[in-house]
């Protein structure tokens, strides 16, 4: 897939091999653009996007002039900026992408994301972290109810959450999505989150795929650097207990 954005050219060729794959890279490297292209919110200048293994579906093929509309792609996206519909409650937001006969999924999602007590609240009354959580929950609920094998795209899904809640949600979400066979491609620039989330990591920078493989192999260097930073005396000094 290639996309021209000003002078920047993205050249992202990769396959999703694991149920949860992490697209890892620094801010501004083009990760969000890749997700938006897969979701059908923008058209790449060249390339092909295919979804599914047994019965592959061509979502986009510039050469053949194929560009499936976003709503028919079987792809669900939680954007980095949580845009809950302001005219709907949290429950109505989560139910938006769920078929009418799958109300139990809405209830389960509310519970799993600790949103049950906020279910009848309007979005403007939520904190930033709660809005982020509800937006991710909305995409997850919708992805889980997809009949054909779809894809869930999560753009920095837990960026606004405190570490404890993030750890709680991540573990639960991983097992829930695995049990419902919902494949996920999530984006992060956080090494810790990448290790927590994915067996498979695509390292991305400057609009290009640098490497793909198991997280331990692909992000070994970043991990060492992070551990080194944490063990340095000056850093320890900064966090010296009072």
């Amino acid at each position, binding site marked *: 897939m290639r996309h021209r954005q000003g002078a920047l050219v993205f050249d992202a060729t990769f396959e999703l091999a694991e149920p949860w794959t992490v697209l890892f890279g620094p801010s501004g490297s083009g990760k969000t653009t890749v997700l938006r292209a897969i*979701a*059908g*919110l923008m058209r790449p200048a060249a390339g092909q996007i295919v979804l599914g293994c047994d019965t592959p579906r061509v979502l986009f093929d510039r050469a053949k002039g194929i560009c499936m*509309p*976003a*709503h028919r792609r*079987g*792809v*669900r*996206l*939680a*954007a980095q*900026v949580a*845009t*809950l*519909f*302001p*005219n*709907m409650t949290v429950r109505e937001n989560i139910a*938006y*992408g769920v078929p009418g006969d799958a109300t139990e999924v809405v209830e389960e999602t509310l519970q799993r994301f600790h949103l049950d007590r906020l279910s009848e609240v*309007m*979005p*403007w009354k939520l904190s930033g972290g709660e809005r982020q959580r509800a*937006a991710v929950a*909305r*995409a997850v609920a*919708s992805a889980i109810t*997809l009949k054909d094998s779809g894809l869930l*795209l999560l753009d920095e899904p837990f960026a606004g959450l405190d570490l404890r809640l993030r750890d709680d949600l991540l573990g639960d979400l991983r097992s829930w999505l695995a049990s419902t066979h919902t494949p996920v491609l999530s984006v992060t620039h956080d090494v810790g989150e990448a290790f927590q989330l994915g067996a498979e990591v695509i390292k991305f920078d400057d609009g290009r795929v640098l490497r793909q493989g198991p997280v331990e192999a692909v992000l070994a260097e970043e991990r060492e650097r992070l551990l080194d930073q944490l063990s340095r005396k000056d850093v320890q000094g900064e966090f010296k207990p009072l």
Partner: protein
Amino acid sequence: MDFEALWLTLRLAAGTTAILLVAGLPLAWWIASGRGAGRAVVQALVALPLVLPPTVVGFYLLVMLGPLTVPGRLLIRLFGHSLAFSFSGLLVGSVIYSLPFAVQPLVAGFGSVDRGYTEAAAGLGASPWRTFRTVVMPLTRGSLLTSAVLAFTHTVGEFGVVLMLGGNIPGATQTLSISLYDQVQDFNYAAANRTALALVIISLAALIVIYSRRGSGLGRGELV
């Protein structure tokens, strides 16, 4: 008070508003949802009645609806008579003349809807029509009301286009504003005063509807 003219004016305004809401919604959405030379030309055409003298619009409509033009001949064949100097002709003229008053508030309303909302809906599998119906429309109810009220009141107050296109036929094309003109020409100032007062009351009531809604707070997540 000329109740016949009042009834005809209200019928004309209601019919014009209904047509403009049906036709104006997709047109405004199309204008608001993109750019390009085509859209700029359409937007200019929609706004043209705002800057043209009403008599110019009335004159061209009179010519267009007459037997000298292809659309006019088609309409004569369809209706069996010319639309000029008839209520149907007035309706066509009012729709065109009030078009910017209906479309521009809608364009502004649709333009104020954050693209993130429509993209979020698409990212949840909603079709463009469902997105429009369930997200865009509820967020722009205020613009819809403004559009309807402005189209209605502007039609009520029309004079130039009505006179050029409909003449002054009591019961068929004589609206309140034409009746007021007649009353003044006849030096019947008492009747003119009542007619003018009726026009003021209708317009004021419509504006109070708009401003009281804005003053009383917006609906669920409404933007405009």
